[in-house]
């Protein structure tokens, strides 16, 4: 059974149709990349999958681990193991990153029927995971994303992903705004989390990220439709010829 099965998905934002029937099937252990020009619907896809209520699913179906996603609220999708690394992580003043993560980890553990972590156990897990993305201690103490640089925010997203251990992770333009060093650290973190059980959907504008996170499949998204799918070499092809060739085809 596919981990994530997207069938003829249509969606709109503020009554404007953005996704025009997307089909995609991701098996456990696979890394899929979606590439597309600005305005092709990349972020809409990630938001619809995560259950953002500003985005409305108007047609089609999405099955996650066999369950109909449209039946689940955003927090239920998260608890079921769907993770979204935000393109623009949100700041929350007054709540330390650590405290926030502990609440999140325990909400998800409770859903899985696992026991809540106490402060000491939680710190142990943190020690373990923070090496993955080389996150600085003081970022854990600071309020969630408050005053973080762009790179720190993205690193924090990957760190949260490591802590929450999702079944399926969606990375929404995680490479945007990163310099080459930060990009490498983020990619190393993602690669360390690759496993035969976990699926990844990497959404990006540029081929650059895919040099570090090597996908099993690449899909080209244009005007709310996947117009071409292929192996990792498709990314290189895009780099060379741009999206223009596909934009004509999609209309």
């Amino acid at each position, binding site marked *: 059974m596919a981990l994530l099965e997207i069938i003829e998905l249509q969606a709109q934002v503020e009554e404007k149709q953005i996704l025009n029937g997307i089909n995609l099937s991701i098996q456990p252990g696979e890394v899929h990349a979606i590439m597309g020009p600005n305005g092709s619907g990349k972020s809409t896809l990630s938001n619809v999958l*995560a*259950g*953002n*209520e*500003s985005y409305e699913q108007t047609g089609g179906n999405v099955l996650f681990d066999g369950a109909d996603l449209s039946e689940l*609220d*955003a*927090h239920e*999708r*998260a*608890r079921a193991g769907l*993770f*979204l690394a*935000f393109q623009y*992580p*949100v700041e*929350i*003043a*007054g*709540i330390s990153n650590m405290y*926030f*993560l502990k*609440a*999140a980890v325990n*909400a*998800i553990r409770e*859903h899985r029927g696992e026991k809540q972590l106490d402060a000491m156990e939680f710190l142990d897990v943190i020690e373990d995971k923070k090496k993955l993305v080389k996150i600085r201690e003081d970022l854990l103490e600071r*309020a969630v994303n408050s005053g973080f640089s762009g790179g720190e925010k993205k690193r924090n997203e990957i760190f*949260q992903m490591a802590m*929450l251990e999702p079944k399926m992770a969606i990375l929404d333009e995680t490479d945007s705004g990163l310099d080459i060093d930060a990009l490498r650290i983020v990619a190393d973190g993602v690669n360390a989390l690759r496993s035969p059980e976990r699926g990844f959907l990497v959404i990006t504008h540029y081929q650059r990220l895919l040099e570090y996170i090597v996908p099993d499949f690449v899909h080209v998204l244009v005007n709310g439709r996947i117009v071409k799918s292929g192996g990792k070499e498709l990314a290189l092809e895009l780099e060379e010829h741009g999206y223009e060739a596909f934009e004509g085809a999609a209309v």
Partner: protein
Amino acid sequence: MKIEDEKSFDELTDKEYKYGFVTDIESESLPPGLNEDIVREISRRKEEPEWLTEWRLKAFRAWQKMETPEWAKVEFPPIDYQALSYYSAPKQKIDAPKSLDEIDPELLETYEKLGIPLREQEMLAGVVAVDAVFDSVSVATTFKGKLEEMGIIFCSFSEAVKDHPELVKQYLGTVIPTKDNYFAALNSAVFSDGSFCFVPKGVRCPMELSTYFRINAANTGQFERTLVIAEEGAYVSYLEGCTAPQRDENQLHAAVVELVALEDAQIKYSTVQNWYPGDKNGKGGIYNFVTKRGHCRGDRSKISWTQVETGSAITWKYPSCVLKGDDSVGEFYSVAVTNNMQQADTGTKMIHVGKNTSSTIISKGISAGRAHNSYRGLVRIGPTAENARNFSQCDSMLIGDRCGAHTFPYIDVSNPSAQVEHEATTTKIGEDQIFYCNQRGLDTEEAVSLIVNGFCKEVFRELPMEFAVEAQKLLGISLEGSVG
């Protein structure tokens, strides 16, 4: 938000007030109405000395000539003071209970439901002493013996009148005169009971003193009187907590709290107020019209007010400090939450009189539903207050788009050496913040609670530990169903 969600939020909002129950205890109440005879009768039943009866009568006569204040940003129909009963005491099988075993078991059960197991508290060696006020008469006082050994007096107000009349006479009404304002005058005339605390020179009270208030009998106004005195170099931390059984009629709660700090003394007064707020259409709920003021009389004395106000249909309350002693310090930390139809007009007054006096005001107002939340504060630097300093920070948070937040700062400076700062912010919980939390597995209620607690952190850290935990929970309960 999807429609299904709104429905479930409504269900949450409709949740019955957790503490809404009525204890079936025979009350010896006076008939409704207010006149000089009633005032005399209250005083007689309480076996008070003549000077106190006269003091009450003087207040009553003053009250008769006064008018209900209308400057606050709150709305309510006129109160019929003649329809209220001014005295309600639970009947006891034995006149003066000597231990908890002698307390009416039904009464104890009420406390159990409210989550204040007195028995356990007594056993929890020395954490908090509770002088529990049920309706108007104090029924149980714990840890009194231990405190007595240190010379600390902590008892009900009636007991203090009987056992320490000289102290009561010396301090009563010296911070808040009987004619101070409409509700203080009313309280002075008909106050039924309350708490009294005296910490002698050089003594540091080793435990948090705690009082719980409750309004039980229908249509009974509750008029507490609290007097806390810290002599030279003394220290005391005092906690006040409130939960009230559910009633349809609005109930009036007009308390008076007076604090006196002498030289080098320090008083920390913390309140968690959770009176019944009324249902979501604004029916029922407590009118909380309270006068609280502290006098920093001695040099280097300090008074801190910390309050978490989540309940009551209407809150009208300005815990204040008069900084008379040189180098004295006044602090006010407040979280006021209003949801549904609740109204709050709350803040503080910092009156600088002495030299080098300083004050800090941190106010956090949270509005949800159709509620209105106002901060009203006065900072007055008198001509004698050389080098006085004040810092005020008033932050408002809005949840939803039908509520209101208002800030009314009054600054009155008559000394050119003063330094006064005022900062204010207004924020709204964003849908993007909620979604971010949702995406990390937290449901919307948890997300709101988390964000709001972060907003209030500066105030919560001023609360004693066990109170801070309770306050955080209360905030969560109060805002349940507020995001739709």
